[in-house]
């Protein structure tokens, strides 16, 4: 008979580490999907996922069972991703002089007819990744959660541990940052 989540957690807390395996198997796809939003290389994604699960194991005592385990785990995942962004801040100097031909083509196509530029084009995906990488860690986190994942301010506050006013301030700044990056991209492309 399959054991419930609560039973598995109780067993882990009692010292049976193998009971952790079904939990890892059940929720890893969500952890990996979240990590892939913030890290490009697969080795980095795996490192994040591994860190999330080790942290979850270490902090399992603090899980009170009031909210679903998945929510608790996703909070940990988002915070680990944010730590990753802060620790791996690459050069964020906004220069778009090295756009590939396909990215330039997509931009030109968009400039000519915004509605017809395809959303599933690889060039568009690369361009999005390039723009997001130029954002500061808090701006990237907020843009991802608020604009891309379409989460509410309250949800973001719960996930990140920031206060609601802080999320609002960071969202405002993030939009400004993104606008700046896009205008730099347009300038580099057309000047």
């Amino acid at each position, binding site marked *: 008979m399959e054991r419930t989540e609560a039973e598995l957690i109780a067993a882990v807390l009692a010292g049976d580490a193998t009971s952790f395996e079904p939990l890892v198997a059940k929720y*890893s796809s969500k952890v990996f999907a979240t990590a892939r939003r913030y890290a490009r290389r697969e080795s980095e994604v795996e490192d994040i996922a591994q860190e999330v699960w080790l942290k979850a194991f270490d902090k399992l005592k603090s899980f009170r069972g009031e909210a679903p385990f998945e929510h608790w785990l996703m909070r940990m995942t988002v915070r680990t991703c944010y730590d990753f962004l802060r620790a791996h801040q690459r050069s964020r100097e906004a220069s778009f002089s090295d756009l590939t031909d396909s990215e330039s083509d997509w931009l030109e196509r968009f400039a000519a007819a915004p509605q017809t530029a395809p959303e599933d084009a690889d060039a*568009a995906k690369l361009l999005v990744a390039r723009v997001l990488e130029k954002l500061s860690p808090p701006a990237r986190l907020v843009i991802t959660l608020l604009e891309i994942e379409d989460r509410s301010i309250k949800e973001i506050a719960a996930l990140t541990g920031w206060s609601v006013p802080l999320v609002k301030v960071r969202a405002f700044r993030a939009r400004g940052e993104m606008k700046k990056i896009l205008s730099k991209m347009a300038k580099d492309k057309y000047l």
Partner: protein
Amino acid sequence: MNLVELQSKLISVARANAPDGRVPFAFEKRIVVLLGARRADDGATLWARGLWQAAASCAVIALLCGAWAFLSPADDDMSQNFETTLLASVDQGDQAQ
């Protein structure tokens, strides 16, 4: 180029291409193995930590005793008193003879 439009287009591109949740083969097993290895390490670490703490306490006690011996007043010769007390019975025996 309309930047507002570009921004919303890029956001919708990101929304339309959500990352997949593919998990490497036997990832959950790897985590459990890692946890087991960490616990074995923890046992050795606990021992090492305990031994270092004991060594540090011994060093502190030795230092305090040394400092006390050096700083205690000269007229209160503790070593002499100790020796006299310890050898009192021998002295008494000598005197009786």
